């Protein structure tokens, strides 16, 4: 198809052509960025937790009257939960990955350094590694005699007596790599305060923090051998087979209630729910962006239909003359399709520049990464397709114009 006649026709419809180009360019720019934002959200929602997500349950209970010995109480509860049929493993913990509520500490590599090296989360609780199902890549797990009661540790912190403080810790691979790039982390010391030095005895494959708002820092995690009592915001974590989760949760709650009918269950959920809740805003935003993209493409398509119909109606006579001079229906159809393709291409080219500009603005104000180049061809293909689909109706109508129109006055 020769494009020169098309260009000369378009030159006679400058204003409407430019409007169509502008609309396509704006749509292209917004769609590219919106698709990119959706990709970001989906990627975030896919963030690995490092735990056996489909096998975990979380229960939190609060006692109405404080137990006289919280550690004995917790041990009783854990023992009760272990007896529930089909339970594989039980742990107590101060927090769960993606649970929002978190305990964190400033890490220093030298007790005397004034500024922290980084801000990491600290998991406390017994039996965490086997229950969470996180993998130990090197070193050993925490042993029962590593553990110190919370209260004892706090008291020791006050008096500065380091004997009653925990001495070892597990860290994630990511944290190890961040603290000592390329070196063996086992045996190295991390300082939580000048007196609390923790020797790294094991490295975990992956364990996300509860407050994983920043993807880059989501794996800055330590597990410290501190024993929780049943008087803090402790969680009971239960591991079971995926298909047993509902029945185990019911049975576990019944067992805990039986031990003390007065206690209040504040949390009871599967880890799937934990993840769903943590990322609900991301999901809502992604859904909204999809809605905007669809609406935008519909509006643009309708705009193309409208303008193309107008052009067809305006050029009825010209089309008739061309048909009378021997142009086939196919020629006419292709003419309008090519015209749309040309306009869309110019629009897409402009749109790419605009998309890049919007991305720069977003990078400046919303801490977004640079728009990867792969989004440009995707945007281009989508808009070309939309253009071709939208123009098909008017173009077919144009192709149906009979040659006899040429002999009539209007």
């Amino acid at each position, binding site marked *: 198809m020769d494009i020169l006649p098309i260009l000369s026709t378009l030159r006679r419809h400058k204003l409407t052509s430019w409007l169509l180009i502008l609309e396509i360019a704006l749509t292209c720019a*917004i769609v590219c960025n919106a698709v990119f934002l959706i990709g970001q959200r989906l990627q975030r929602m896919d963030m690995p937790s490092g735990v056996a997500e489909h096998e975990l349950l979380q229960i939190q209970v609060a006692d109405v009257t404080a137990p006289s010995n919280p550690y004995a109480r917790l041990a009783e509860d854990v023992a009760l939960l272990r007896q529930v049929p089909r339970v594989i493993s039980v742990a107590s913990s101060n927090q769960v990955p993606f649970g929002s509520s978190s305990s964190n500490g400033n890490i220093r590599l030298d007790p005397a350094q*004034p500024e922290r090296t980084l801000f990491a989360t600290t998991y406390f609780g017994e039996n965490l590694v086997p229950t969470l199902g996180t993998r130990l890549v090197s070193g050993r797990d925490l042993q029962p005699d590593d553990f110190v009661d919370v209260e004892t540790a706090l008291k020791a912190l006050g008096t500065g007596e380091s004997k009653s403080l925990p001495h070892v810790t597990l860290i994630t691979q990511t944290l190890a790599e961040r603290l000592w790039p390329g070196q063996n982390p086992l045996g190295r010391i991390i300082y939580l305060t000048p007196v609390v030095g923790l020797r790294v005895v094991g490295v975990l494959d992956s364990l996300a923090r509860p407050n994983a708002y920043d993807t880059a820092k989501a794996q800055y995690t330590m597990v410290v051998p501190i024993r929780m009592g049943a008087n803090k915001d402790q969680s009971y974590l239960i591991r079971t087979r995926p298909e047993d989760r509902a029945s185990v949760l019911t049975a576990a709650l019944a067992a805990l209630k039986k031990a003390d009918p007065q206690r209040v269950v504040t949390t009871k959920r599967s880890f799937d729910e934990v993840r769903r809740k943590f990322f609900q805003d991301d999901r809502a935003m992604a859904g909204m962006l999809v809605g*905007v993209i669809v609406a935008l493409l519909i509006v*643009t398509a309708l705009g193309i239909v409208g303008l193309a119909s107008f052009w067809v109606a305006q050029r009825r006579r010209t089309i008739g003359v061309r048909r009378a001079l021997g142009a086939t229906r196919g020629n006419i159809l292709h003419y309008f399709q090519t015209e749309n393709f040309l306009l869309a291409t110019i629009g897409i080219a402009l749109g790419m520049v605009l998309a890049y500009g919007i991305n720069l603005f977003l990078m400046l104000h919303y801490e977004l990464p640079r728009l990867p180049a792969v989004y440009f061809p995707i945007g281009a293909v989508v808009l070309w397709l939309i253009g071709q689909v939208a123009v098909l109706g008017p173009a077919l109508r144009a192709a149906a114009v009979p040659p006899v129109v040429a002999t009539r006055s209007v």
Partner: protein
Amino acid sequence: MFAYYIELALRSLKRNRVLTALMVMALALGIGATITTLTVLRLLSGDPLPQKSTQLFYPQIDPNAKEGYIEGQTKPDSIMTYVDAMNLLQAHRGTHQAAMALTQAKVIPKQANARPFFSDAVMTTADFFAMFDAPFQYGGGWTAADDDGRAQLVVIAGFLNDKLFAGANSVGRVIRVNDHDMRIVGVLKPWAPQPRFYAQDLGGRSYGDGEAVFLPLQTARAMEMGPQDIECYAAVPDVKHIETAPCEWLGVWVELNSDEAVAGYKTFLDGYVKQQVALGRFQRTETSLLDLMGWLRQEQVVPDDVRLQAGLAFGFLLICVVNTVGLLLAKCLRRSGEIGVRRALGATRREIFTQFMVEAGIVGLAGGVLGLLFAELGLLGIRHQPAQYASLAHLDLEMFLFTFVVALVASLIAGILPAWRACVLAPAPQLKAA
């Protein structure tokens, strides 16, 4: 004349129903999206206490160590230690002043077989209610003497009163909070300023329902109720006694009724910090005294997502307007013959221009009505979202009227170019062509 334009416009719009429907639909979608996101944005960035916000101030000081401090640049901390909060309160430099922290209260109903439950609670000092204009349904707040005497009393929110006492006047009755009997002295009317300015940085949510229980700070602390958020700036010898620990966990608000009072308070605050530096307690001298809206701006309470959505909606509206320009232009160029006849019969350019602008305006109004429908649908969707502010998303009268302003402005802007093209058309060639 205007009526005649309207008639002409309606006739022209009716002649090409599909094109008209396309224009109205596109404009309505753009307007719907814009109004939906703007309603949310306005809701989230609103003034929580419009009648009082210019008189409420949030003092900030900085007890951190000298390391990392850059004079004039490092912002002071957002919450305060108990010692500083009490020193500021006892100075009585404002009309009202209160310190507060958020906590969880375990409420045990007195009724048989009623289950205990946890509620959000505020532990604060006597001026809280008067300073924030919290309205009482029954009774009132407590006094400074009650604060000092650690009186066992509470103020409860209306919704808790409804739940426990079926809405009856419960002043003087007793509820059990964290295993202590507490006498109710006041019941609030529904009160939950949005954004929840005083809960900001105290571990509370930025939006949503208010707290159920308000109790005197000293009383709550005597009951070992702990704050939701606590930040320590030095090694902590004893985490149980947070009154003496180097930890920040209280927010302080001050009511100041004149510019002189504000300037006076700032001087007092600077003086206080200098005095603390001289005493060796503080190393940093930076202070801040923001008013309520300034504080919310600094805290950036409005979620980034919401601002992004509003930007996106404006982009969408822009595309819809460009779309409308194109379609209106197509329509008006098709009517060159008609314009030629009208011009030849004596219509001035101004009259042609007005006629086309009226047509655009009618498209805009129709788009506005439909857009309102879309906005209501959009807000319905937002109310079903899991966000904290979801339940607050409603269209008020101002946004209702604003919808039509947006619709008219958008369509008139879209109409200018086509109307101008129509009015500069030379009549003679058109007549000849016809």
